[in-house]
């Protein structure tokens, strides 16, 4: 993790690693930022989610006094939600929703939100915070998915060979950061040779508080219907009478 932080923030960082959580501040080329996230492909528990939401709330409060909302760089490394009866009983999704509300509060307080996917981002763990940022970037080798193809074949009762063949042409179901990029769910794919601090500066500068992902998916050709359908419902121009 420190290797990653050193490379992202050559001007310095002060990030505390506490178990699978990390939180702190760093200096980007555009100025100081908060850094909040998870590491080591964490299975998100209610405890991890509470630490994340606490870090977001603290960031918002810290910056209220100065009147300068520093950007928040989320580092998402998660294999998804923790699978446990206790966590389900406690309504883990309620903890994730609380975290999502905190992230949204930060956005409305003027914090620019950028997510960097490191290692892996899966399903519920990705929904809880990483996917809510204004700008979502995948680091090299990042895996992004809901479920691997073998499990998907089992649940949908579709032959794995058929899914694998379809995955060659369709970005719609198969794992892969590239697929999410084509669908507008990921804004940028970073490669190893890139200047990461410059890439991060660009992400911080280009992020705005609106959700443009459906338009992005349409323009990249990977998700051609979502924007048009949502717009039709929003505009209400075609009542089905």
């Amino acid at each position: 993790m420190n290797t990653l932080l050193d490379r992202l923030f050559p001007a310095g960082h002060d990030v505390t690693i506490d178990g699978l959580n990390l939180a702190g501040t760093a200096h980007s080329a555009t100025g100081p930022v908060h850094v909040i996230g998870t590491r080591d492909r964490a299975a998100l528990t209610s405890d991890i989610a509470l630490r994340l939401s606490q870090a977001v709330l603290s960031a918002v409060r810290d910056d209220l006094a100065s009147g300068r909302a520093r950007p928040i760089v989320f580092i998402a490394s998660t294999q998804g939600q923790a699978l446990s009866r206790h966590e389900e009983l406690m309504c883990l999704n309620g903890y994730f929703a609380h975290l999502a509300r905190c992230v949204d509060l930060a956005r409305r307080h003027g914090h620019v939100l950028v997510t960097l996917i490191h290692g892996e981002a899966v399903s519920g763990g990705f929904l809880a915070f990483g996917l809510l940022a204004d700008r979502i970037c995948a680091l090299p080798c990042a895996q992004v998915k809901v479920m691997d193809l073998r499990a998907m074949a089992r649940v949908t009762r579709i032959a794995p060979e058929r899914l694998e063949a379809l995955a060659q042409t369709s970005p719609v179901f198969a794992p892969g950061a590239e697929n999410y990029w084509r669908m507008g769910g990921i804004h940028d794919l970073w490669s190893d040779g890139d200047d990461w601090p410059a890439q991060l500066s660009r992400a911080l500068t280009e992020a705005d508080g609106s959700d443009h992902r459906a338009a992005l998916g349409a323009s990249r050709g990977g998700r051609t219907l979502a924007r048009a359908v949502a717009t039709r419902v929003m505009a209400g121009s075609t009542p089905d009478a």
Partner: protein
Amino acid sequence: MSAHAITRRSWFEADARTRIHGLVDAGSFSELCGPHERLTSPHLAVLDLPVAFDDGVVVGEATLDGERILVGAQQGEFNGGSVGEIHGAKLRGLLDRARDTRPAAVLLAIDSGGVRLHEANAGLIAISELMRALLGARAAGVPVYGLIGGSCGAFGGMGIVARLCDGLIMSEEGRLGLSGPEVIETVKGVDEFDSKDRALVWRITGGKIRRTLGEATLLVDDDLGAFRGGAKALLARGAPLRGLAALDADQAALAARAQRHADARDGLDIWRALGLPDAERLAMLDADAFNRIIDRAETA
């Protein structure tokens, strides 16, 4: 009581349109992007699977006691109410419409296992967009209320969406969670969670334990009229507080709850820890009797 029993119409058994008609004022519902527009999923068609003309979700405008509302209902029987590209876009559009047109509320009748695996990436992004749109409607001052009482409950990403709502109405038959019991059993083993033990499943994810923990705002009987009554009650309450102080309070409450029930593995553990009388019998009570016990415990 008997008159009520005679007129009772099950929410659990009803389909999405029947639920909407049971919720809103008679004749007031007007559907947006309805089945005649034939917005069917091309992703299911590619896999040679049946499609539905509404892609498993009904959205539109209506009134509730004369007040303009927006309403959406998922069709649990179609692919488990799962969220694909079009399904998700319809719900997202509804919430964007709420942000722009400021109805009195949005009602979401959730009945979904979450992301539709046949279009998993589109579904995951769609749920994220739906989450942002829901938060956008709330920020614009429009309360969003969820209703859960169908066979699929609210799981996966839709379990998160449900908890983003300003209030949740559940029946005992409704279930709310993140990972379904079958998933946990498959990965962690039957000793962790026996998905065939239906009573246990309901004690972990059902309406009564959710009402006990405050995750559900109201518990109602499995009846269209009861859900309508619950929706009217939530509308009358007005939107809850928002902002930093409210989220700080939620943070403290969630942390305290996690600590208090750190070892709980069954709804019974929680009911006993709260000192509720005859925890084993709570499962037998109807919604009114159960609500009275929880209300007393909360004020105690």
